[in-house]
């Protein structure tokens, strides 16, 4: 679904991504982990078409839904209006399927998105991305700033969506969460992929374990 080859992205003179290769196959759930400033969100923005590559290729087969870092609500609009705008590109205004998938949003549909809790906003962000009827979903920092119980609930939804056939690229600082959820992963540091493999292999890699999973692992 996603095939990135030799991707280089620059922010002015600074190289944010340096010859990155990454793939996500149909039905797969792939993790992209790394420290703050590694270029993870730059890669996500590039996949979503918001940033342009300086070199290399990005091929996305099928529709891509994007949950950006920080939820990025339209705070003055209602939950329902936020969802409807998620379908803007494909002129999809039917929100009912999203409320079926994320029933906790149903009682909130008339609330201003800016008045919701962080977890509720993250759910709206996921729902808004689903309005694009995606075949692959890029989720940037699902867990950022959220309570563990809320993260667990969101992760459950993500796993269900993946089980139903949606390919997912999970961009996360929380490596433990990402490697628990995904079958395969990439480690990005300073704009370069420094490790890749199955989630089990990455979790067993001492360098990854020390840097991202804590000493206990």
């Amino acid at each position: 679904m996603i095939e990135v080859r030799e991707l280089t992205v620059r922010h002015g003179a600074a190289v944010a991504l340096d010859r990155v290769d990454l793939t996500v196959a149909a039905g797969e759930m792939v993790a992209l982990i790394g420290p703050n400033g590694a270029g993870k969100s730059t890669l996500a923005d590039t996949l979503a078409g918001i940033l342009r590559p300086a070199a290399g290729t990005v091929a996305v087969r099928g529709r891509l839904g994007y949950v950006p870092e920080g939820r990025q609500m339209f705070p003055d609009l209602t939950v329902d209006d936020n969802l409807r705008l998620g379908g803007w590109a494909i002129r999809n205004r039917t929100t009912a399927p999203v409320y079926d998938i994320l029933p906790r949003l149903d009682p909130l549909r008339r609330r201003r998105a800016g008045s919701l809790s962080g977890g509720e906003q993250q759910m709206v962000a996921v729902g808004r991305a689903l309005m694009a009827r995606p075949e692959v979903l890029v989720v940037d920092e699902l867990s950022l700033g959220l309570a563990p119980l809320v993260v667990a609930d969101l992760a459950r939804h993500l796993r269900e969506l993946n089980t139903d056939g949606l390919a997912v690229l999970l961009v996360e600082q929380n490596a433990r969460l990402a490697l628990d959820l995904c079958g395969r992963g990439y480690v990005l540091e300073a704009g370069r992929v420094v490790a890749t493999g199955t989630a089990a292999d990455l979790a067993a890699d001492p360098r990854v374990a020390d840097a991202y999973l804590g000493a206990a692992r």
Partner: protein
Amino acid sequence: MSDLLQYLITGLGGGCAFALVGSGMVVIHRVTRVVNFAQGSFAVLAALTTSTLLATGLPHGVAELLAVAVGAGAGLLVGLVAIGKPGTPPGASLIITLGLAVAAYAVEVLIWGDQPRSFAGVPGAVELAGARFQAHYLLIIGATVAVFVTLAILFARTDVGRALSACASNPYAAKVVGINVTRMGLLSFAVGGALGGLAGVLVTPIQLVTFDYDVTLIVGGFAAAILGGLVRPALTLAGGLLLGVAQALVAGYGNAAYQLEVALVLMLAAMIWQAARQPAAQREVA
């Protein structure tokens, strides 16, 4: 009593023009964060265009509609120059609109000269509770009410309105969902141009218009828009009407020479009020 009623109605008519100019500024600012100082030029351009079209024999209604379309086109053109290049800061765009407003003087003087122009509006007069006023004022008030109802429906009930609001509140998220933010900004400039054009077309039958009449309109329109925090059309309408009535009362009971000062004082008061409210608003967000 009849004098007061007459001042109120003529004031409401004049205030509608300020409200329409101000609403154009609000529509553009809501979407692009740009304060468009060329807004008064759209009104003058449409007014002068109407006078020419009527002189060529076009009937009323058609000439005015075409002139409003010219205002929309001018708005689009100003938008292309001011925000066409992605990443232009709103402050730079503001200066561009100011420059274009001054440049418009040269074009208008070249085409229409520097003599004031007017044309006939709705004929006849209306008498109400002893007050007598031109029937055209009713058209101005009715058209303004219709415009503001339409704007309210546009922003609250249509997907295009939601997309326009989305661009203003979170341009990055708007891009994420596939909204072309620059195109929406240009649309807002076109709508702003049409609103300015409508103000010019409506006001010219009761007010001689020259190439530099935009200053009067922009001061009044900006004062009205400031009252609405440059984002709320309903408060802009209230501000425009308040200003129009205040100016009419000053002209009627005092000296018409102080009308501009009334607008400036109202604008200053609105700015102080907005600034005083700001900390409270920030506390609410926190």
